């Protein structure tokens, strides 16, 4: 029998209806006390993950994701059910929430100073995110940066870090105590695992931070740290490319992002050493001024 669960993920909340033990178990690993049986809570969105019905499900079971009555994606193979739910949550927020300018980007902060790391898949962004989150930084988000319109303020939307392919082994070695989900194999992004950020990130789930930098990271196995200051026009256009709801918010998003870019430092970095990157970020961006 399927049950209703509640996930409290400031500033949004979800109810999840599912009967799949693997989904329940992974949610519990990743979200800890923020995941519980639904009682009187009122969730923003009603999601569900179900096993597909019919004869096919005996031969090759599939998982289906619903946001209320809507089924935005085609069913995926059963073992990806939890990852499917995570992407479904992203889709739900990206499609419905327009009170913030939302950038496809990681956000990490020291104190209340935050840096955006927008980057395409394969750039090593999530490995860097995981490293920083375990080394004195707090994670505000791995995938979605919520910026309050016409400010430089980022609202945390703490979620697990999504690691792919070879990063999975690296992360398991680097963070032996980390809370990892099961591996979802052969997704459109390759093999995928979710890693819960450390408790300190969760504890500060409701504390906003001010943007001081935008950094586009690129991992290159054979390259020592190289840093380029990005000019503001290029940095702006790259942010626009990574904004989820830019086309909906139009003027608001335009003025918010031009304001952010005017007031922060913008860099592109190439690296093969996470510790060096962390040192650079702290010295040149966080301690700057």
């Amino acid at each position, binding site marked *: 029998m399927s049950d209703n669960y509640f996930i409290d993920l400031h500033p949004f909340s979800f109810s999840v209806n599912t009967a799949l033990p693997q989904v329940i178990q992974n949610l519990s690993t990743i979200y800890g006390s923020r995941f519980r049986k639904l009682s009187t809570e009122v969730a923003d969105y009603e999601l569900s993950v179900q096993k597909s019905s019919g004869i096919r499900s005996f031969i090759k079971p599939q998982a289906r994701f619903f946001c209320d009555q809507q089924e935005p994606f085609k069913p995926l193979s059963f073992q990806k059910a939890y990852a499917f739910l995570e992407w479904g949550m992203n889709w739900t927020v990206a499609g419905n929430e327009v009170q913030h300018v939302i950038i496809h980007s990681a956000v990490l902060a020291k104190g209340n100073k935050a840096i955006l790391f927008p980057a395409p898949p394969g750039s090593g962004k999530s490995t860097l995110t995981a490293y920083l989150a375990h080394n004195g930084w707090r994670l505000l988000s791995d995938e979605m940066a919520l910026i309050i319109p016409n400010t430089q303020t980022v609202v945390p939307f703490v979620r697990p870090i999504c690691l792919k392919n070879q990063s999975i082994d690296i992360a398991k070695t680097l963070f032996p105590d980390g809370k990892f989900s099961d591996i979802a194999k052969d997704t459109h992004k390759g093999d995928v695992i979710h890693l819960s950020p450390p408790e300190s990130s969760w504890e500060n789930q409701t504390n906003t931070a001010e943007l001081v930098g935008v950094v586009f990271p690129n991992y290159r196995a054979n390259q020592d740290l190289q840093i380029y200051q990005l*000019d503001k*026009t*290029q940095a702006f256009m790259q942010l*626009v490319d990574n904004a989820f709801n830019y086309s909906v918010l139009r003027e608001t998003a*335009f003025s918010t992002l031009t304001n952010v*870019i*005017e007031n922060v430092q913008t860099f592109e970095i190439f690296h093969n050493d996470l510790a060096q990157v962390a040192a650079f970020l702290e010295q040149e961006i966080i301690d700057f001024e």
Partner: protein
Amino acid sequence: MHSFSDQSGCVFLDVHSGETLSVLMSEADILKVLSGEIILDKKTTQNIAIRSLIQKNILLPLDCKNTDV
């Protein structure tokens, strides 16, 4: 329109289509191009960007002032 303080360029929001366009030139230089003071090589990206902005009625060439209309 926003002109960045580092003079790296200007960005434009087309309010009709919602599209964002950029020109990697300072506002002062763009004005010079529009008035004909600077002539850009046809193949440069700046030229292409400015022409597309003119086509979309976001920028207007300044030589209109010579006409009697």
